[in-house]
């Protein structure tokens, strides 16, 4: 019996060491950089935010952050499954695919966490319309779907990690 109680802490420590090694191996390579057309992150024009980090974006879309600094409720909107910009955004920002996203919110709800999945709409125009109509909304569209003028409605693009969508260092690309 004494032998077992001596081995147990040793095994546990060994497991944590192995955990650290595997963790180091599996997390090397972050963040993922892409090199295609930019995906523009948009918010309501009344939102004072001008810049967000990739980590902040992940928190906003995964319901880890529910309010803006202004106190407005965060209302993320996302295109439906199959849209290439959705696939790219989830991969780069959340390190997920569509199935992972569904499972994440299912597991979050199941574990008792207060998490609301993003609203899903069927077109880039609907994304812009939703963001224009909700003060706390945030979404993303392809660069070709964002004109930067009045035709987009009351929305604006925000920088990501200090880079505008036209900058070479912009990370969120298709």
């Amino acid at each position, binding site marked *: *019996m004494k032998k*077992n*109680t001596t081995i*147990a802490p040793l*095994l*546990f420590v060994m*497991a*944590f060491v*192995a*955990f650290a090694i*595997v*963790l180091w191996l*599996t*997390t090397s390579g*972050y963040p993922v950089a892409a090199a295609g057309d930019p995906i523009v992150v948009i918010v309501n024009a009344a939102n004072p935010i001008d810049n967000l980090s990739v*980590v902040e974006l*992940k928190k906003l879309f995964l319901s*880890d*952050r*529910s*309010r803006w600094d202004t106190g407005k*409720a965060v209302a993320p909107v996302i295109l*439906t499954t199959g849209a290439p910009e959705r696939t790219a955004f989830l991969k780069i920002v959340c*390190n*997920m*695919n569509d*199935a*992972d996203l*569904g*499972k994440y919110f*299912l*597991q979050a*709800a*199941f*574990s*008792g966490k*207060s998490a*609301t999945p993003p*609203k*899903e*709409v*069927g*077109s880039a*125009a*609907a994304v*812009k*319309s*939703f963001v224009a*109509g909700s003060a706390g909304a945030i979404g993303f569209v392809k660069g070709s779907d964002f004109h930067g003028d*009045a*035709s987009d*409605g009351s929305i604006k693009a925000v920088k990501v990690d200090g880079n505008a969508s036209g900058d070479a260092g912009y990370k969120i690309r298709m």
Partner: protein
Amino acid sequence: MRNRYSIAIRNPFSSLVLCAGLVLVIPTQAQQSPTNQDQINQQLLERVRELEEEVSQLKSATSSAAPAPAPAPAVVPEAPAADEVPVVNEVAPRLHLNVFGDGGYGFYSHVPNSFDFGSLDLFMTAQLSHQVSALGEILFISQNDNSVGVDVERLFLRYRQSDYFTASLGRYHTWVGYYNTAFNKGEFLETTTDRPFVYAFDDSGGVLPMQEVGLNITGQIPSGKLGLNYVVEVGNGRAYGLNAEPAQNNQDANNSKSINGGLFMRPDAIPGLQLGFSLRHDNLTVPGPPVAETIATVHAVFVNSNYEILNEGVLVRHVEPNGPVFTTSAFYDQFSRRFGAFRPYFRYQYFNAPSNDPVYLYASPNEDVPLNITGFVGRLNGPSVGIRYDFTEHSALKLQYDRFSFRGLPSENGLTSQVAFMF
């Protein structure tokens, strides 16, 4: 962009208007200077010819030029309703329903091989307002005596004031360790076919208080990139005793309330990593002398879409007044890696409880122990290997082999299969 001046000069019709104006002016000027009438007429005729030539040039230039761009179309308001996508599992404007089910076939060395109904889990959530929500979960689960038990697994009302304060009142799963809140019931969400032994549900004979009636408060701690979170729970605690319902749903056995606190961090630098601990205290009313129980857990987990690495350690102390201390230690380590639809996994677990522990002696039979024994205390340890195959997005097949060693009992080999799904 054109200006008004250039438009007037290049417009041939404007030139014609100018000509007409000149024609109207001619008589007036003739009356004012009659002595040079012929000369003036000649000059005017030349000017008219010049203007006619200019008009003809402008006409030809206009016809050969590209057509003027059409005016920009007016911005028509979108009709988002046509693009909105129905919310999955929304059965009413406020109610979401998910159903989990599982079943399988398993055989161990010392029990008959059997098909297993598993469980049917009705999981409901409702957003009552932006800040208030409700969660209910009803479980139908097969018992060792072949009956199907019905259990209100969870039922609570939750108020989310902000990211820093969320309070839930009702029956919930305790924040004792990581596994209990990350997976709960619903085998579809779990990688393995069963929970680690130390986190077996208390109403199935598990040693830890997994469910409780009380108040749960949780939230983030402003900590920047550290991502600190806290949990505080106050509840009735767990009841021990043969055939006793572990969660004291209606009447606490004593006035002492269980208190549980925990901290965990999710650093921004390593997405998917969570490190945390919890500490819980309760005074237990058992058939013998009252027992003070302290449960400490620590966990380090890393979960992303490809990797799942779970490590948890648990220490339980039972202290009788002026009496001896009984310490139970347990841990498990689990590693899995996804390859497409397949996810092989490995788990090693260890559990060691004193044979004379004054609390576990009175615990309900543990249905999750492979051996058909009751009131399990002692040592259990061993590996499990298996593979999970997600043959659709919402259904999975699992195959798992276990080998357990027990103190004072023969080792056990087991092979289980499980189909888990949700809809």
